[in-house]
């Protein structure tokens, strides 16, 4: 990139801190309400402990984040979801019951999105501006479906270093904010790696993205099993975020604001690809 980046105001790198809420919906998808105990209570750890802890950390560091929340969890935890909003964060879509969208027909995908939007309307009075695929799984049609439903961005693909515009067959546009498993907590904790290892891995990821002037899209989960909600793991998050804040010319923002900028007419460095 010859020392110049695509970012505004001489910024070297853009950072979004995202949280995949993944509460009890993850367990509820496979088990009835009465079974959400024991090994099926890690999602509830996230709502009772992990999310409040992450919110406190983001407050302390004055970072605004984007929370991707399944519609079922929005209805399950309306007070907590409104608290997330009231503390300055963006709330975006993430399926209804954390569905695997790769197994759904385009019509079914449309219906699940509609059901989730109902929850957002009821609890938050908004339409979500963005979406991330649960498990990262979706089909080639999904982004066109999102665009037709007036979503402004998706953050699920892992095929570029920078945001890009997707143009659908109908001429609709939606921004993609690429995201990588290497900058996610669950990728490591699923394999029971220690917070120390995760923190070192993230550090390498961030520094490498910073050097090339890319987008660093960090993904956290509040859950008690594969997430960062446990106190010892949140320390790893804090160390990474403080490292990021110590670097000059970092644009730390939300997915909504980043995608609005990327869609803006004044920005001619964002590339456009067909859906």
């Amino acid at each position, binding site marked *: 990139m010859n020392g110049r980046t695509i970012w505004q105001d001489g910024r070297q790198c853009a950072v979004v801190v995202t949280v995949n809420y993944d509460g009890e919906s993850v367990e509820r998808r496979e088990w009835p309400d009465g079974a959400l105990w024991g090994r099926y209570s890690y999602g509830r750890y996230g709502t009772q402990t992990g999310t409040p802890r992450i919110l406190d950390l983001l407050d302390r560091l004055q970072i605004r984040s984007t929370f991707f929340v399944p519609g079922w969890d929005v209805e399950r935890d309306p007070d907590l979801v409104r608290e997330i909003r009231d503390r300055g964060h963006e709330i975006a879509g993430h399926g209804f019951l954390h569905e695997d969208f790769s197994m759904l027909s385009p019509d079914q995908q449309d219906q699940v999105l509609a059901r989730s939007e109902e929850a957002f309307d009821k609890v938050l009075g908004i339409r979500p501006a963005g979406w991330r695929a649960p498990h990262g799984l979706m089909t080639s049609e999904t982004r066109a479906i999102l665009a037709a439903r007036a979503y402004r961005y998706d953050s699920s693909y892992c095929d570029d270093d920078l945001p890009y515009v997707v143009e659908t067959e109908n001429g609709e546009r939606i921004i993609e904010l690429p995201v990588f498993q290497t900058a996610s907590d669950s990728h490591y904790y699923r394999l029971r790696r*220690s917070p120390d290892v995760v923190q070192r891995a993230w550090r390498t990821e961030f520094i490498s993205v910073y050097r090339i002037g890319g987008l660093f899209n960090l993904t956290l989960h509040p859950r*008690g099993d594969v997430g960062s909600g*446990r106190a010892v793991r949140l320390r790893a998050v804090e160390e990474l975020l403080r490292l990021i804040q110590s670097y000059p010319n970092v644009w730390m923002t939300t997915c909504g604001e980043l995608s609005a900028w990327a869609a803006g007419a004044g920005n001619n460095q964002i590339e456009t690809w067909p859906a």
Partner: protein
Amino acid sequence: MDSGVQSTRNHRWPGGARCVAMLTVDFDGTGNEVGQGFDPAGIRSAGGYSARRGIRRMLDIFERNDIRSTFFVPGFDAENHPDLVREIVASGHEIGAHGYLHERWEVPVDEEGPLLKKAHEILVDVTGEAPVGWRSPGGMKSAQTLKVLRELGYIFDSSDKDFDLPYPAIVSGEPSREMIELPNNTSSLDDTPLYVEGAATPDEVLALWLDEFDTIYHEGGYFMLTFHPRAGFGSGIPSRASVIERLIPAIRRYSGVRFMRLGDLARWCLQPENGFLDTTRRIGART
């Protein structure tokens, strides 16, 4: 801003302790394999290690370090090794119930009550004392599990993974004042997932648990560790038992740490003045 974490900070531990540490042992002998329909032979014989070597190794470590703890014993293993179970009790430890054949599957509702009673009676017969606590063998419960256990006189369950502190167990849909939940996080404070899914070395596990302990010590002060005296997925063999051996003095370097049996901790938490019954959030109450 109110958060679930801060709202439960008004609790206190026995004797003015800053942190309580529970090094709990799940016996998990050959019943684990038998229950799944396997012949516990060859590579499936690791459960036999518990009774032959692992349990006594844990008893030795606890004795050298003057620690009393809680051992969860499936009924099948108690039937097969009654003298060893009595030796655990004679060494000052507590026995908790842990299923009959370590049922890690969903037990049909009409079979659950009889199964809990069967395992309970075996432990009563073997030890001469009624257990007061239970841990789900596979981490599963039904809506009626704790109701049955409460009727049998149990005062704690140690199965849930949804909080960092004890809280009133949900019995028949309501927070109980007679039964306490002592959560155990089996994602990072249990040996099995680390050694199996993580293929971790003993040194890595020790470093992780010390890191967990350090954070918990400064946070809520409730350190609940679960390990198994088996070979295979457990900590019975010398290399892994040494993690427990090295962990204890490292924990003791912190001031105000109290090692406890779960029954004693449960009785403490059930006294309202100690702050565990009046959580401002309805912990785990939604079913």
